[in-house]
């Protein structure tokens, strides 16, 4: 089971751009630990989506874009977080929207730029508001790790990713 940090792909321009959404829910276990109430310091609980997992959400969004561009033949691994800036927290009942744009695609890897937006249902008329930017680099590991062999099957784009693509209406025969 792969931990998925996006719920649905809502737009795909092959090779150029992929948009995905993530609904933040109080049913998610990690929200209760981040941040849990701290009785000793008199702090009540503040459930927010950890920024590291927002980066993972963008990495999955951009990673699918990169994988799709290479017909899912390459094993696409997040290699570098070139930039990550987030200006506000995402809490339960909010929706994150990740837009990943391909900057460069090469036999060795790819670079993407990304925008993170937030829809707060407490203020729905504001719509999706930009809360940050995350730029990433991916490596096609079979092309890069000279002398290191990886399994034949594409363990990066596993069943969870196939399910996500299928339920988002994206054809992917691999």
């Amino acid at each position, binding site marked *: 089971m792969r931990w998925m940090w996006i719920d649905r792909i809502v737009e795909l321009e092959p090779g150029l751009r992929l948009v995905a959404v993530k609904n933040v829910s109080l049913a998610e276990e990690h929200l209760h630990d981040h941040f849990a109430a701290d009785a000793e310091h008199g702090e009540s609980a503040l459930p927010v989506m950890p920024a590291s997992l927002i980066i993972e959400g963008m990495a999955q969004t951009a990673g699918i874009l990169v994988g799709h561009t290479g017909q899912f033949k390459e094993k696409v691994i997040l*290699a*570098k977080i*070139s930039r990550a800036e987030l200006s506000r927290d995402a809490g339960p009942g909010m929706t994150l929207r990740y837009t990943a744009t391909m*900057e*460069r695609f*090469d*036999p*060795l*890897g790819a*670079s993407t730029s990304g925008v993170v937006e937030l829809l707060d249902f407490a203020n729905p008329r504001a719509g999706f508001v930009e809360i940050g930017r995350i730029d990433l*680099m991916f*490596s096609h590991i079979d092309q*890069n790790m*000279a*002398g290191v062999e990886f399994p034949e099957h594409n363990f990066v784009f596993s069943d969870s990713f196939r399910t996500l693509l299928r339920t988002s209406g994206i054809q992917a025969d691999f």
Partner: protein
Amino acid sequence: MTRDEVYDKVRQVLVDALSVDEDEVTPTATLTTDLGAESIDFLDIVFKLEQTFGFKIAQGELFPENVAQDPRYVKDGRVTAEGIAALKERMPHADFSAWEKNPEITKVGEIFTVDAVVKFVERKLSATAAAH
């Protein structure tokens, strides 16, 4: 484009790609030891140079690949004369004089200096200009 202009742009590429301070980027600084570049950073540098200067860099053109894995080129941890000749042919932009006195493969990163990148860009720009 003058050498200073090329140098300033290369420095900005390295500052962005490697998250280093401007004053750390000196002509003799090595990308790996001094500026902390790892394998994926080389791809990042190639992408950013292409974007900045508007030319295309072929795979292995700036940073040769597969030298360390070739038994003809490396023997007992040292790069052979054949290997050094191959590197020089592939990297006319680099200065080998210090490293080739003791050509250990683990220290081959010493030839990847900021100056080598600047010279590489200058050669590419003049080749592009000549082609037009």
